[in-house]
């Protein structure tokens, strides 16, 4: 007789492993990327997250929903992965205004540049360019007014461009 070792949120039907992947793989990846800043790290974190979910090693106490459970595991996994893979950010002169990044971009330089940003900066960029959110929606997500969110996005974009142009240490 098979023993189901997966933990489940209370009062929700059990999701199969495949269901979890289909529902949450993208969001888990995006969250992992925000935290870790690098594509391959985010992929590793996503993989580790789902492995942990499949194994049922994680407990569900206090999880408000299946999604909250999944994203909590994802956050914790990414953070703990990040501890062993910390990379220094480039220090760049704030006063320089770098031009928009040109296509085709050097993937490695772009990776480095994204990795050098803060989690919030990556979040803003994701919301703007990935999810096409309005300043009002972005503001809500980060707890700022729409104007402040737009400004923060501008600065994030500026910093990204500077990191991209800057010399690697």
């Amino acid at each position, binding site marked *: 007789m098979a023993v189901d070792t997966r933990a489940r949120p209370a009062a929700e039907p059990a999701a199969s492993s*495949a269901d979890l*992947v289909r529902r949450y793989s993208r969001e888990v*990846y995006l969250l992992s990327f925000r935290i870790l800043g690098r594509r391959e790290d985010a992929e590793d974190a996503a993989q580790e997250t*789902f492995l942990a979910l499949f*194994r049922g090693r994680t407990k569900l106490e206090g999880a408000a929903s299946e999604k909250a459970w999944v994203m909590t595991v994802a956050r914790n996994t990414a953070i703990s992965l990040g501890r062993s893979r910390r990379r220094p950010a480039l220090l760049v002169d704030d006063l320089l205004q770098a031009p928009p990044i040109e296509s085709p971009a050097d993937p490695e330089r772009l990776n480095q540049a*994204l990795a050098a940003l803060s989690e919030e900066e990556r979040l803003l*960029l994701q919301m703007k360019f990935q999810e096409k959110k*309005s300043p009002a929606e972005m503001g809500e997500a980060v707890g700022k007014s729409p104007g402040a969110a737009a400004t923060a996005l501008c600065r994030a974009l500026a910093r990204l461009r500077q990191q991209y142009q800057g010399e690697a240490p």
Partner: protein
Amino acid sequence: MTHPDLDVLSAWVHGGVEPDGLPEHVDACAECRDQAEALRDEARLLEGALAAPADLEARLLEQARPRRSLLWQIPIAAAVLLGLVALLAEPGRRHEVVSGRLALDDGRELAPKAELAAEKSWRIRAVEPSRIRLADGSAVELQPAAQVGLAPVEGRGVEAELVSGAVALAVAPGPRRLTLRFPAGRLETAEGRYGVKIVSAEQGGEPMLAAAMVTLVSGTLSLSNPHGALEVSPGQSAFLTASAAPLLTAAPQDRQEDLLRRLEQLAAAIARVEAQIAKLEERNKQLKVQVQNPGAAPGAVWVGGSSGATFKVIQGTGTATDNGVILEVQTRDANLKKGEK
């Protein structure tokens, strides 16, 4: 108007803000048009760079495949065996820590990306659940406190030793078999996935008893020790101790039928035994003395029967008493000797 600031242009290109006169200026100004175009290109670039990889879901689904759940159905101590991603890397001359945290004998810690030269021997203990890619492309997953040794060897390049704890292995295909040694014997496989758990008791730091449970998920597996050898098929589990030949345990898929069959056999045996007991009890209750000499006077004592019991006639019909309990006694041996009163 003068050329707009990059941020202003950006705000306009990406929608939302349209300062007076800006569109007209951009129409007329080649430089600003180019800049606006560059901003649009950049937006597309970032959209791609920030997106989840297209094949991510497929890869994660691969991990979730039902095939893995066979491991969870196997009756080995709870949650010991883990799913694996088969890492079929090019065999190199190094072992690499893929994830988790491990420690060497000398206390040095190993973190992901740490590499160990394959031409040296290593003794490694897992601090957290960890994964190592061996130089031959095989992957080892260790549970916390699991200890493995790695040694260079001709042919395969590496030989592994499981000292204690639980590991799961995905063995990369290769012309020579990967050998995994442990106190109770060794196993060799050319390719496959299997889980091993070592059970050992220690006294004064020395392992006193070591047994291993091995379950083959897929591939081929040979188990051997000085007492014998065994070929294991996928889905089967085997038990290996130092003092006996490797032994197949019930395979998961026919476990239920096997158990049912044994239960039926037991039930039948019990029924037979119960019937025998009942018969004996009946016999005990119904020993009747056939009195050879009808008319023997009440009070006469008879000794006889195959049991040599003493019977005292109470009545002329042959009813006798034994130990004060009135029994109706019947024996096959009808010859009763008259005994002392």
